């Protein structure tokens, strides 16, 4: 359904919330600006258009040992207009953006976007058919108790510096890098199909790493805390164990420095959620992106071994394994109410009982795999970026049994426990991967026997997930993730979480991150 500008303004009048304006916001009605952009796009010849006014704020503080080295608070604001032009049997997308958010600039951006689309008109290998979407007039915001931007930068710095006071008491712990970051995306979306959606997404991260050095050998290692970034308020950081763990993290660094190097070979691995999430991200999350599977990312992010013709056939893993996508997970970094196509977010299985079940899609992709509705995976990192398919939160479902990490260790005669994320790398079709971690402990006879260092494990996605023979239960399931995941040209960054229980993998190829001498 298409709305006129007048109808759109009527929608705006009853919209449930008005985004709080920054003191820097010009005195314009966002709804008027968006409406003008859509009107101008249609007048210039667009078949469909959407526009986003986005204000993005990014605040961070960084410390080194007992002092602050950087404090920053950045903000960008602008409007991006995306148009679809159809002429005879030819179609093309166009995009233009303006940092000036007023009606005249929005109209100019829309007209420019149409001109750009017309320059690219051509017959399509895969026609652009936008999956139907309901008209939404709504708002959505990150549930939070304490807005991180209301917390003094001095308090944030003091929290990190206070951690150093514990770290420096540990022998061998010589350096510490700390940082806190808060981001807020406030976006108002409108489309020529009548939706008007306001959202505010707030994410926080706090981390530190301790470096231990040995002057005699010239050796050094770093051990980072494993607290995951989260879509949440500052209460997530203050309630975390960052400070309580300080001494332990420093002791880990010292222990890792003196630990024996891994002997390469085949080993059983017990992977903590703080390590396994990244394997899920690379091997499952990226391999089930539909644009990648169909070759649209071939020049940069790569393609995928999983292709639509393999739905229901490709065995990723044994039937105890189910991976699901969920942009509604509480605290998930990719969680929101609506995607940047204006579709409502949802939860669905990507790999069900071991078999490929579905893909991640946007409105213009759903029809390519015969689906009637988009999976709401469209995202643009900012006002100046083009929305395209980005990863939702992708998680591993826990075992129905109440199995704990301790249970898995107790059941393991000879293995290695890996926690935290370290080095990571996977090939451009998502087969061959190699991961490291933060801490590695030998498991002997069902008990933790001592630390190891320089461990990496290398495998193939299908072989690796088939080797999983123990999963933790729901009580052991935790959410991890990253504020930064790159894809696309021009490259864009997406924040995404992955939840999982601990799990055991049999007979995995383990290598040393150091060179064999």
């Amino acid at each position, binding site marked *: 359904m298409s709305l006129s500008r007048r109808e759109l303004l009527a929608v705006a009048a009853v919209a449930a919330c008005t985004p709080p304006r920054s003191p820097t916001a010009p005195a314009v009605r966002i709804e008027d600006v968006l409406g003008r952009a859509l009107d101008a796009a249609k007048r210039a010849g667009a078949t469909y258009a959407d526009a986003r006014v986005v204000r993005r704020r990014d605040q961070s503080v960084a410390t080194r040992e007992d002092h602050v080295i950087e404090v920053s608070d*950045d903000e960008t604001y602008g409007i991006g207009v995306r148009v679809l032009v159809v002429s005879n049997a030819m179609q*093309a997308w166009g995009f233009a953006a303006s940092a000036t958010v007023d009606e005249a600039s929005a109209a100019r951006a829309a007209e420019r976007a149409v001109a750009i689309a017309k*320059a690219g008109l051509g017959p399509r290998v895969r026609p652009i058919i936008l999956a139907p979407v309901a008209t939404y007039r709504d708002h959505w915001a990150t549930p939070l108790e304490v807005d991180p931007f209301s917390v003094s930068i001095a308090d944030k710095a003091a929290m990190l510096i206070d951690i150093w006071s514990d770290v420096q008491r540990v022998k061998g712990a010589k350096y510490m890098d700390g940082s806190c970051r808060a981001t807020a995306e406030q976006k108002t979306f409108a489309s020529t199909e009548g939706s008007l959606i306001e959202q505010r997404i707030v994410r926080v991260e706090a981390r530190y790493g301790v470096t231990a050095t040995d002057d005699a050998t010239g050796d050094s290692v770093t051990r980072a805390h494993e607290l995951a970034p989260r879509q949440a308020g500052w209460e997530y950081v203050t309630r975390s164990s960052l400070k309580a763990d300080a001494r332990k993290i420093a002791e880990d660094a010292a222990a890792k420095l003196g630990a024996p190097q891994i002997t390469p070979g085949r080993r059983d691995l017990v992977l903590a959620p703080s390590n396994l999430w990244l394997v899920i991200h690379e091997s499952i999350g990226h391999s089930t992106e539909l644009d990648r599977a169909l070759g649209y990312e071939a*020049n940069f992010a790569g393609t995928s071994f999983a292709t639509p013709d393999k739905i229901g056939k490709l065995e990723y893993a044994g039937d105890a394994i189910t991976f699901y996508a969920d942009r509604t997970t509480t605290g998930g970094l990719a969680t929101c109410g609506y995607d940047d196509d204006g579709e409502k977010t949802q939860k669905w299985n990507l790999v069900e009982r071991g078999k490929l079940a579905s893909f991640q899609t946007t409105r213009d992709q759903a029809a390519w795999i015969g689906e009637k509705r988009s999976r709401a995976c469209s995202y643009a990192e900012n006002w100046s970026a083009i929305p395209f398919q980005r990863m939702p939160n992708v998680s591993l479902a826990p075992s129905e049994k109440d199995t704990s990490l301790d249970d898995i260790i107790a059941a393991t005669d000879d293995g290695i426990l890996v926690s935290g994320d370290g080095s990571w790398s996977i090939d451009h079709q998502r087969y061959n991967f190699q991961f490291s971690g933060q801490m590695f402990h030998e498991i002997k006879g069902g008990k933790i026997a001592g630390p190891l260092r320089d461990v*990496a494990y290398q495998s193939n996605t299908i072989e690796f997930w088939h080797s999983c023979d123990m999963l933790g239960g729901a009580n052991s399931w935790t959410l991890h993730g990253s504020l930064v995941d790159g894809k696309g040209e021009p490259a864009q960054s997406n924040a995404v979480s992955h939840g999982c229980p601990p799990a055991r993998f049999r007979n995995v190829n383990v290598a040393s991150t150091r060179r064999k001498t």
Partner: protein
Amino acid sequence: MSARGFEICDRVLALTGKLGAAAVVLVSERDSGHVRFGSGEITTAGEVSATTVRLTLAFGRRHAKSETNQTDRASLEALVARAAGLAKLAPDDPEWVTPLGPSQTPNNPQAWDDVARGSSPSLRAAAARTAIARAEEKSLVASGYIESHADTSTLATSTGLRAEGRNTIASMTMTARTRDGTGSGWAGSEVTRAADLDADALARIAVDKAERSRGATKLDPGRYTVVLEPAAVAVLLDYFIEALDCRAADQGRSFFSKRGGGNRIGETIFDPRVTLRSDPFDPLTPGRTWDDDGIPLRATPWIESGVLRNLSTTRFWAKHTNREPTGAHSTFRLSFAGATETPLEGIRRGLLVTRFWYVRWLDRKELRVTGLTRDGVWLIEDGRVTRAVQNFRFNESPARMLTNVVTMSARSSRIPSGEVMRIPTITTNDFEMSSVSDAV
């Protein structure tokens, strides 16, 4: 000359003048346009003009940084208020160094081209269509990206430094794949003048590689003599450059740390024919002539005839260790005394590698990284390419690459990398391919 940039700088400095604070204002203006194609069709295209105003403000040793992309008076006042508020709350930073005063930082006209600035949507779309057509002629599928941007940077400090720089960059990359997924080839180039981009020639290279990469067979992992094309070298060199940090070396945290303390400047670490330099005035690597602190970027050798000559040194660390700061360079040129026109010559058995993918640190102390080959690997036997082989994962050190180098090509290329990098093809020994990848 960016009148607008200096005008914004001056407006911000006027607002900070009453605060009694030291201020550094950096205005970055960018006009960019792109077209992307994938799976044999144009997918997205767009243009963006953006201005970023970054203000660093310091009250004594308490400092903070803030950015905005809005340049109206109210937004700049808010910028100053935000930075001032943060700086007053920030604890003392013992590493703070006051902004630089007036100095000679000449612009580099070689880095700018008015034609590149005017690159149009229709020109970019035409180039994309050319690339797609070259692939289709051979029943291949093209994906790629063409971008041009024009950057103007302006810096002014409360202590009197004023600097400006302009540069244009146009780039194109393309991947051609066989329809059955058994072959893939890549080509890419970056230029200052958009008119110098040759979409047809690049597309032909990608197409040729895709065709020749079909039917790859599996080779065992192991240590090989490898011929690394410029795109492969560039990504390894990125990690090498990141490791050229003087502070980390002095503190014992780096490959360039000396056992027992200090760093390895002055040591012959690499093959004595290897030289790595930064020089924004080099016509082959034209770039901005000052860094974000306003430090003039002079010609700087990092490696000279195999000897480590410099490590990147910030103003604080330079003061702390009684050295000169190097500035943060963004132009790099790798060269070799006695370079060859025939890098494959004399290789009994080795691998020819197009490019690497997903390179990540393994061990900073050893300067060791991991990653994978991509878009064309071939076996070399007796100086000739004999057959396509499957991709490999490698675990190797960019430093060893420069230590074990056999030769480099006389011809070099500018590779799209985020920095201006002029890179030859390198032949190097004993390169560790640790496992085989099934990816094509």
